[in-house]
């Protein structure tokens, strides 16, 4: 029983990490129509930025902010330099998927000579332990959960109450109409890449902090869990991604406790397949995956 209580605690942390990653991923798709397969590699790059800052003797929490800033700038530039020009050219959605996969490959292999294959980990004591019932959490894990909760509330506030958030939703619903109504969609899209890039960077550092060690190869796993949560919730739906993260985070940790932790990604994948067979549009989206590709 205590094993499952502990797994529940890990599930809480894991869902926080996945939520940060999945919300950014799904917003990129929902608002800019871009399935950014380089997302996992941007996450891992940001994790390494935090690693080098941390190694210089600076607190990992500063490193986390730096990772988020790096992710924001990197994603923004990625869009400005590669994605946006291709989209302006009228490249199909499929073409964009191939472009982003090529970008992902390039980031991973430009990073490789710098960081090498070896696994690394942050220098950060895991802090004191907190026990509630059978759940044991370290101080770091509590901070991770706190960060995720604050960010999710922030995203909710942004999308619901601010002009920028409303402009984002308008752009997601119909970019042409939004532009004709006087919304500067180009600036909105820039803002989206900065914000989602920041989420991506943050998620990368947090994911790296949450695992004992990380390596360049972790990027693909990061991408798969974010994808699974985003698709489960309905691609393009930030709230869906949050729900997806809760389900994927819990299910993967509980399954890791019941049989083998090596198959965490496989369980996430199993959920993904089930969703694609049974409800391809995801939990929240009305059209989503079923709509014809534009």
């Amino acid at each position, binding site marked *: 029983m205590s094993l499952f209580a502990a797994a529940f605690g890990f599930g809480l942390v894991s869902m926080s990490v996945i939520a940060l990653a999945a919300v950014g991923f799904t917003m990129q798709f929902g608002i800019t129509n871009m399935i950014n397969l380089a997302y996992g590699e941007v996450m891992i790059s940001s994790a390494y930025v935090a690693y080098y800052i941390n190694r210089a003797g600076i607190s990992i929490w500063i490193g986390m902010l730096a990772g988020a800033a790096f992710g924001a700038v990197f994603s923004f530039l990625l869009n400005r330099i590669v994605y946006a020009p*291709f989209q302006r050219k009228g490249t199909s*959605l499929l*073409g964009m998927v*191939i472009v982003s*996969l090529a*970008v992902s490959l390039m980031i991973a*292999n430009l990073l490789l000579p710098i960081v090498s294959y070896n696994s690394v980990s942050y220098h950060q004591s895991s802090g004191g332990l907190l026990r509630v019932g059978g759940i044991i959490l370290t101080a770091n894990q509590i901070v991770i959960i706190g960060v995720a909760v604050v960010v999710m509330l922030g995203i909710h506030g942004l999308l619901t109450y601010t002009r920028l958030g409303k402009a984002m939703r308008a752009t997601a619903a119909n970019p042409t109409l939004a532009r004709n109504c006087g919304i500067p969609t180009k600036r909105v899209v820039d803002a989206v890449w900065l914000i989602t890039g920041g989420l991506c960077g943050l998620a990368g550092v947090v994911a790296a902090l949450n695992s004992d060690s990380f390596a360049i190869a972790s990027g693909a796993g990061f991408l*798969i869990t974010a994808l*699974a949560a985003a698709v489960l919730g309905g691609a393009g739906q930030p709230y869906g991604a949050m729900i997806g993260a809760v389900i994927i985070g819990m299910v993967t940790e509980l399954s890791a406790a019941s049989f083998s932790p090596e*198959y965490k990604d496989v369980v996430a994948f199993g959920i993904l397949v089930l969703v694609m067979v049974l409800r391809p549009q995801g939990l929240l989206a009305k059209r989503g995956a079923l709509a014809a590709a534009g």
Partner: protein
Amino acid sequence: MNTYYAANLLVYAGVDIIACLALNLQFGVSGIVNFSFIVFQAAGAYAAAVLSMPPHTASGYEFQLYVGGFQLPFPLPWIGGALAGGLLSIPVGLVVLRKLRSDYQAIALLVTSIIANTVITNARPFLNGAAGLALVPQPLQDQIDPGTDWYQYFYIGLTAVCVVLVWFVASRIVNSPFGRSLRAMRDHELAASALGKNPVALKMTIFIVGGVIAGLSGAILVGFIMLWAPSVWLFPETIILFAAVIVGGRGNNMGAVLGALLVPVGFEEVTRLLPSEFNMLGFAITPPVGLIPALQWVAIGLLIIGFLWFRPEGVRPEPRHVFDGAPVVPDAPEVELVRTA
């Protein structure tokens, strides 16, 4: 240039040509972005391996754990490999190709590729896990000694026969009414279904055909290199083949062959020719281990992005299929379509 080197080069070229022809049928002709192509090649290779290997309890093979071990004579493992590729295509195709939007299909297949590799790596008793299968018997090694030059020529010949066969099948498909339906579906799925074409059936068919050919390519490769492990079929391997088809020319079989020769074969050869030590201003500089392969991948990425930007139709563009009796439109003015999104 010794025989072994020539055989290595030619067999790899043949395998890449076969794989690119299959991928061209799926991606170039039918518009299915099969990011898990390499999984079907791997399925063929594993199947061919366990069909030709003795049981894992046989002497000399105890260090491995795998299912099967049937010791079948030569053509059967290759046929089995092709069948395995085709059989695996059925469930994957049924999940991915029926309901999903095309970009979702692409990511679903990509994730499938990554996960399949994870599963095989971790599930050791099935196909010996991360270490993979080794000492796979070579075709007809009891009749012809694999150590001889003769055997190398023989293997090149076998590969060439398969290349010709696959080329024949691929060009028949492209030029047939079925091929026209595939292209119609790729260019305008809604219009094709309005004309009574069943897009799911078309996609499933070509997905399975591609899977069979991919399986065959894997069987040929494993018979030559005699080992197969998860590290040789990581998902970026599929991207190389995509780069080849995009560079060569999507939808054009000739382009697929050209792409196979330029990208996978070309890159392998060029990197082999690079010195392991550069002499710069009198200083000997040794690049760190892993730098060259990493840069090779970066170059593949650049190649894809560069071609998609500057020449999306590739070196050998798909021929426009115009039929006798089609109305001749003299210099129709290019109409600039206004994009709405």
